[in-house]
């Protein structure tokens, strides 16, 4: 790998790997003690503070917030999976004036800082709403914010795959007598599933961890405290170990979802190629 490689690994260790290790170690209250004379690993005593971890994660506030984040994220990922296919379809298959503009607009939620996304949504769906729709401190408001920030993931996962589909298969289905709906569900969708699924996974992971866009619209009341907001509140009270514990739980949840969607989508795809 050479000197450059060592530098890169060192940098990654400093800004990603060591911090994550420190987080999990604090979260699970892992402590390492040595006994005897040496530093070799057989002198180590590793102990887990599973009790501390569990009580932090199962505290009422923690449980409620994780639960809220889970179902919101599932809902958001599902809605955007459907809308992502619809939008990708319009962008790839339809021809109309301004299509290029719409295509760029899809990236806006990605380019926009999350806090700005929050302010933007409050400008119309907040208190003093110009259209009299006030979603401040409601789960609907949270959902809207999460739909906003995860939209690019859902669309961009599907779009290139849809664009590369073989149009002849659809023509073949038509000559065999299939109608529009049947062609879509039994010829097009089966080829899109892997990408829809991976878009779902990305959107879910993003939604579970999202903070900036919902930090204002949540308003800081219990009913709308998501997991990331709850964790932030813990840090504001300097409860770092509890925060690390809930963070670890949240990490595990996103990891499971990401790995599952990835494995399922890969397995499915391997049959097609």
């Amino acid at each position, binding site marked *: 790998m050479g000197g450059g490689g060592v530098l890169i690994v060192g940098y990654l260790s400093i800004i990603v790997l060591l911090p994550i290790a420190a987080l999990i170690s604090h979260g699970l209250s892992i402590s390492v003690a040595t006994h005897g004379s040496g530093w070799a690993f057989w002198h180590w005593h590793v102990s887990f503070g599973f009790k501390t971890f569990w009580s932090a994660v199962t505290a009422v506030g923690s449980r409620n917030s994780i639960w809220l984040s889970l179902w919101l994220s599932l809902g958001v990922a599902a809605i955007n999976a459907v809308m992502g296919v619809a939008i990708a379809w319009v962008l790839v298959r339809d021809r109309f004036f301004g299509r290029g503009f719409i295509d760029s607009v899809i990236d806006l939620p990605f380019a926009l800082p999350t806090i700005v996304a929050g302010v933007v949504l409050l400008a119309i769906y907040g208190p003093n709403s110009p259209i009299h729709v006030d979603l401040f401190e409601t789960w609907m408001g949270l959902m809207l914010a999460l739909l906003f920030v995860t939209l690019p993931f859902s669309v961009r996962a599907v779009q290139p795959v849809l664009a590369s589909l073989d149009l002849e298969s659809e023509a073949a289905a038509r000559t065999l007598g299939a109608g529009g709906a049947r062609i879509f569900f039994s010829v097009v969708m089966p080829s899109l599933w892997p990408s829809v699924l991976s878009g779902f996974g990305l959107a879910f992971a993003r939604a579970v961890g*999202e903070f900036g866009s919902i930090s204002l619209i949540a308003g800081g009341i219990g009913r709308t405290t998501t997991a990331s907001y709850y964790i932030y509140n813990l840090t504001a009270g300097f409860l770092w170990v509890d925060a690390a514990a809930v963070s670890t739980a949240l990490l595990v949840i996103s990891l499971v979802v990401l790995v599952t969607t990835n494995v399922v989508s890969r397995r499915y795809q391997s049959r097609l190629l």
Partner: protein
Amino acid sequence: MTNTSKWTLRVVVMSYLGVLIGLPVTFLVVKAFGHGFGAFWSEVTQRDALDALKLSLEVAAIAVPVNALVGVGAALLIARHDFVGKRVLDTVFDVPIAISPIIIGIALVLAYSRIGWFGAPLARWGINVLFTPLGIVLATMSVSLPYVLRSILPVLLEVGDDQEQAARTLGAGRFRIFFQVTLPSIRWAVLYGVTLTIARTLGEFGAVLVVSGNITGVTQTLPIYIFDSWDQRFDVLGSYSGALVLALISIGVLGILAALKRREKKLLVDFA
């Protein structure tokens, strides 16, 4: 596809995008200028706002070049060399965008602040990351890590190493090959990645909020200033005005990205 279903789909998609993106962005402009341009201007030029903007730019000035160098280096390593742990290296780059920025902030604190793993030795050298600009730089570097790599890697793989090998047979050295053969073929991708990195560094909120402690004039970046204006100081107009400034920067970024995508089709497969 029949005309009816085509139009139904168009209307559904446009309404969704309108409710989710179009209307909110429009009303941000309306609200920011709600008390006239003068009020907007005095909001964005007040001292705290300018301090926040200055800090944001300083942080970006450090984080962006570092991550650009690391991204280019790692992309070359992954695309052109075989080594044990290549897939692990590739995956590590995605960790910061796969997890919550809040969690990244906490992780940094638990590693490098006084209460963290390396807190004691670092404190002896006078280094602390909690509630300091250094912490903000670290957090920003972490969350904006993957963009350069993710922009370059597909292009590098597509271009292949034929040209580099040809240059080698013609007697070119490593530096000449990099600057005269490799870099020209990935320059748009590098620019694309750098643009994304800038956007992310200027906009990062969660990770920075955790490590910064939100000290006005010292550790307040522009996104945190926007948050603070709304949440703590009830200066809604200040919040809208700051948000509009960042939104305009983002729209500029989008324009650059779109132009780059037209030059290099492969860039369409971005962060997703």
